[in-house]
């Protein structure tokens, strides 16, 4: 199936909005879960969009912009996964893999913006110093506008412009290659989880990881709520425990203080 011009434009418009949202981290409609669903809807295949949304969301679960870094772009990944699956008939799992180049390219574009937007800061300082608040507001919002248009243009080119090239490329892939992409799509979440662990996992949390893993292995249920509830219960118990420990530590500190006072300057006697 092909993407019509109208579809291409409407996707580009959505990319513009989602792009602003990602830039501001406002409503999280930039996450693949939403991006895929909307893209699917715009292409007339809502169900495909939703399913791809589930898969891609997980594949990107740990790929976060924490600390001002930039992960592979979730918007382009979401859009292109659905577009590729829709136009080439491949499964979403395979399509995730094929969408990645677009995602990484967009990541670099944003990184480039981060650097050049520094040029606005000098002007901003001046406007503030002069008390010209409206002009200050406009120059501060400028980066958002630029980013928005970048999303619109890049996604329009990717979705509409490159589609025949894309189709030829994808259709000429041998079986083992597309199977390889499918497999990669299934393994990809491991990268995200690895990243999550990198920032969360201390030695003392390993047992909880193992408990959650084991629970999920043996509780047969369609979603992760059971594991989340077990985790929440354990967290709750730990919360109470830590509070009591903190109280103990505070008591120790109080005692130490009064020990120092009574030992050092016993002027009351």
């Amino acid at each position: 199936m092909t993407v019509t011009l109208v579809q291409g434009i409407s996707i580009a418009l959505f990319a513009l909005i989602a792009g602003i949202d990602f830039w501001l981290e406002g409503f999280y409609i930039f996450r693949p879960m939403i991006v895929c669903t909307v893209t699917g809807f715009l292409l007339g295949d809502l169900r495909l969009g939703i399913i791809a949304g589930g898969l891609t969301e997980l594949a990107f679960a740990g790929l976060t912009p924490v600390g001002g870094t930039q992960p592979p772009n979730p918007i382009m990944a979401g859009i292109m996964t659905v577009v590729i699956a829709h136009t080439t008939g491949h499964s979403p799992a395979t399509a995730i893999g094929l969408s990645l180049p677009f995602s990484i390219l967009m990541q670099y574009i944003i990184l480039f913006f981060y650097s050049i937007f520094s040029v606005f800061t000098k002007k901003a300082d001046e406007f503030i110093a002069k008390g010209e608040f409206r002009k200050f507001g406009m120059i501060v919002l400028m980066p958002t506008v630029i980013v928005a248009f970048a999303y619109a243009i890049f996604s329009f080119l990717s979705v509409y412009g490159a589609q025949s090239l894309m189709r030829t490329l994808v259709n000429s892939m041998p079986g083992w290659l597309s199977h390889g992409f499918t497999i990669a799509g299934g393994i990809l979440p491991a990268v995200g989880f690895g990243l999550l662990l990198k920032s969360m996992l201390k030695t003392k949390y390993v047992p909880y990881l193992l408990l959650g893993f084991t629970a999920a292995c043996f509780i047969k249920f369609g979603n992760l709520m059971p594991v989340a509830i077990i985790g929440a219960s354990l967290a709750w118990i730990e919360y109470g425990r830590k509070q009591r420990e903190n109280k103990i530590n505070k008591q120790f500190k109080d005692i130490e203080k009064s020990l120092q006072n009574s030992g050092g300057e016993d002027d009351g006697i």
Partner: protein
Amino acid sequence: MMESNKTTRNKLSKKDITKLGLLSLFNQSGMNYQRMQADGWTLAMIPSLKKIYGEDKNGLIDALKANLQFINTNNYAAPLLMGLGASLEENNENRSTIDSLRVALFGPIAGIGDAITWFTILPIVAGITASFAQQGSILGPLVFFIVYFAMFLARIPIAHLGYSAGTHAISKIHENSAIVAHAASVLGCTVIGGLIATYVQIDVVTKIHVTASHTISIQKQFFDNIFPNILPLGYTFFLYWLLKKKNVNPVTLIVLTFLLSILLSWMGIL
């Protein structure tokens, strides 16, 4: 020394704080590598500071200049700090007190905020809604959207919290935040364990032909016999090790995973 101004400072209304919470949305609008969120942050603070300083335009400009310093914090923690800052300005605290508090707090609070929002809420919401979505149910994106819409609205009470907390509560926040972060980590790690088991899929298709009619499936008769999902767990830990100890770039790992997948597909192993 600032006694002269003290009488001129105006109080913010509840509505002002609500507006501040909503404006915190623009925290990242001017994002750049030089001073990160500073410009957007200041933009969000303007209306509140305008009202506080009223006629005192020089005071206002001084305050805004002070806000235009490097800052990079979690976006749901930003309204907390903004509310706090506003309450300090209102009470005519020392300029240096206000500034140093903002600088002292944005880092630690970013840590806690990231732990809760990026590393706990996101994977859990993603994990649960994805399980709906993968069955093609609209519940998936719907619930996802509702949760994050609520998260957006949460900026309002968070801003109020920061405003009412004032200076006194700071040591308290600091103290409890460690506990909250601990509990969040427990929850987060448990869920990630579950996510690994559920969403990372590695199935070895190789079969060993013992005799003409008798074959042994590596996956079913070996790996699944040891522990279910042992390969996903192993591979995730391998990536974790590369990320943590070898400081490998995530994009490198994505590419690696793809190359490996394609290679193993070609070899007929996966």
